[in-house]
């Protein structure tokens, strides 16, 4: 029978090993992309761990024919516009669902959520036909519209959860103190729900930024976004993994920067939703 200190040591080692394994499992693809972005193509196929890094890949992807800067611009505008439109509307909708007793509210809420269960591949063609008839194919507007339809239900559901956690007393106190409903939302609800709203905004931005299926169908040239742009990196010699890796870093980098800047609100938002 092992002594208590020995058992504790074994437990600690096992925990460390499991955590390390999980971390390695998660980090290997990230490492692969980062290292690949600074390698020459031949170094990637040779699976070299030690190599001479180069910045040449980053120069190539921003030049013709790839013109990644245009795609970066499109992705930024589309994702940013989606969030700017979605979050205020979702907040108002979430507040209404949370605070007002509406006729058929349960059915409405279920219907809104149920749009999330429809596979994207089922509705991509109707969207294509609709945008073609409206003459807005291959435009950033079409991408924003399609992203809104995908993201709004999720944003409403998420923000409603945070608003549900705000004590009713606080709002009623504001009403009695002299606020109208809009002032209550602006002065009381929004500041208190801000971590949750920011969390929802981050998730929505990430979803819009990474959206591929609708973008690849609806765009051809002018409104192509970064995820679709990745599919261009192939040539006669095969898939250009070094360029894909460099472009992959350009896709991931804004997300890392965003998450670092608002990490405090993000963590608070996630934990606030968990503990009520």
């Amino acid at each position, binding site marked *: 029978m092992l002594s208590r200190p020995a058992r504790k040591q074994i437990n600690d080692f096992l925990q460390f090993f499991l955590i390390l394994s999980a971390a390695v499992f998660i980090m290997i693809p990230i490492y692969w992309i980062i290292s690949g972005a600074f390698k020459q193509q031949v170094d990637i196929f040779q699976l070299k761990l030690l190599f001479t890094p180069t910045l040449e890949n980053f120069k190539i992807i921003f030049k013709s024919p790839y013109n990644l800067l245009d795609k970066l611009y499109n992705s930024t505008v589309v994702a940013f516009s989606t969030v700017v439109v979605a979050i205020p509307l979702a907040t108002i909708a979430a507040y209404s669902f949370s605070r007002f007793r509406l006729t058929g509210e349960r059915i409405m809420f279920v219907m809104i959520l149920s749009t999330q269960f429809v596979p994207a591949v089922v509705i991509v063609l109707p969207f294509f036909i609709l945008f073609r008839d409206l003459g807005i194919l291959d435009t950033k507007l079409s991408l924003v519209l399609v992203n809104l339809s995908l993201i709004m239900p999720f944003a409403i559901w998420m923000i409603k959860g945070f608003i549900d956690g705000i004590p009713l007393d606080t709002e*009623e106190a504001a009403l*009695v*103190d*002299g*606020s*109208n409903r809009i002032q209550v939302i602006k002065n009381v609800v929004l500041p208190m729900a801000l971590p949750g709203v920011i969390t929802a905004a981050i998730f929505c931005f990430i979803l819009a930024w990474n959206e591929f299926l609708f973008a690849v169908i609806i765009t051809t040239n002018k409104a192509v976004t970064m995820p679709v742009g990745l599919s261009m990196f192939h040539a006669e010699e095969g898939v250009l993994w070094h360029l894909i890796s460099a472009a992959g870093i350009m896709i991931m980098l804004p997300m890392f920067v965003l998450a670092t800047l608002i990490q405090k609100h993000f963590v608070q938002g996630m934990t606030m939703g968990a503990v009520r």
Partner: protein
Amino acid sequence: MKLENISKSWGNVTAVKNISLTIQDQEFLVLLGPSGCGKTTTMRMIAGLEEPSKGNIFIGEKRVNDELPKDRDVAMVFQNYGLYPHMSVYENIRYPLKVRKVPKSLHENLVRKTAQKVELEDMLNRRPRELSGGQRQRVALARAIVRAPTVFLMDEPLSNLDAKLRVNMRAELKHLQHELKITTIYVTHDQIEAMTLADRVAVMDHGIISQLDSPEKIYNDPANLFVAGFIGSPSMNLVKGELKEGIFKHSNFSVKVGLKECSEATLGVRPEDLELTNPENAVCSGRVYSFELTGESTLVTIQFEEDRLTVRGHNKYRVKIDEIVGVNIFPEKCYIFETETQQRLRR
């Protein structure tokens, strides 16, 4: 303020049934009752947070049924304080002035004077999470009084405080209301708060007002069984029996009360109005079920077959469980109620 035949229902559930009430200027009225009696719903209708299903509410001469809460010139203190956690104490107190567009030049002076009244002048920069329960309560009070409303509404404001702090805050509330001379409606389930604070108490039960009177009359002259049993700690002893030829007859004792006949009657007598004595000299005797030393007295519960009586004795009185003791019942201290209608029978 006047409530005229106010009712509130949600579907088949009626929380408030046809309440009519007139509250005088500067009066401190307490709505007292157990959970679910409709007292908070009544207050919320006055505040405008609930719409009456029927009836009218007047503040002054003005009918306010259709007015928003912000237009009724009432201020409310909530059970959970309702403070704005993202604002400092200063900003919390200032908020009503800000949204009501009181000139900015007046804000600082008004806030500081109000903070002084509730002894919070050193805490204006703190956030609510940095305050104790009593301090938060005072911030809520300050926010209510800063704009000198027509009516104060207080919904169980002391219920989240510990017993000692509750006693202190009660005294402060009473003093503040007297100093500010503002009509106050106070909701509580705590009868001690009602008795100590109120000019009048409206005892509520199942959506109706059982009795509306001064605290003294509520205690000494209960109108029905509910009020008699609800008011008093420990509560009034209530035993069922029969009233015949002016005598209340119980299986263990009889008391001459001089009232008209009633086949089913209930006798009520307060613990402090009974006297412990030797079984030989007593009106009735029974076995000691339990006794409690409260410090200022001894509470002895005595079992009489299927009934029990609680007697408040001297704090030096000692007795053993299962010991036989006698109890004297004085007719002039007894209350008789008709069991079926629950109403008090009077001489």
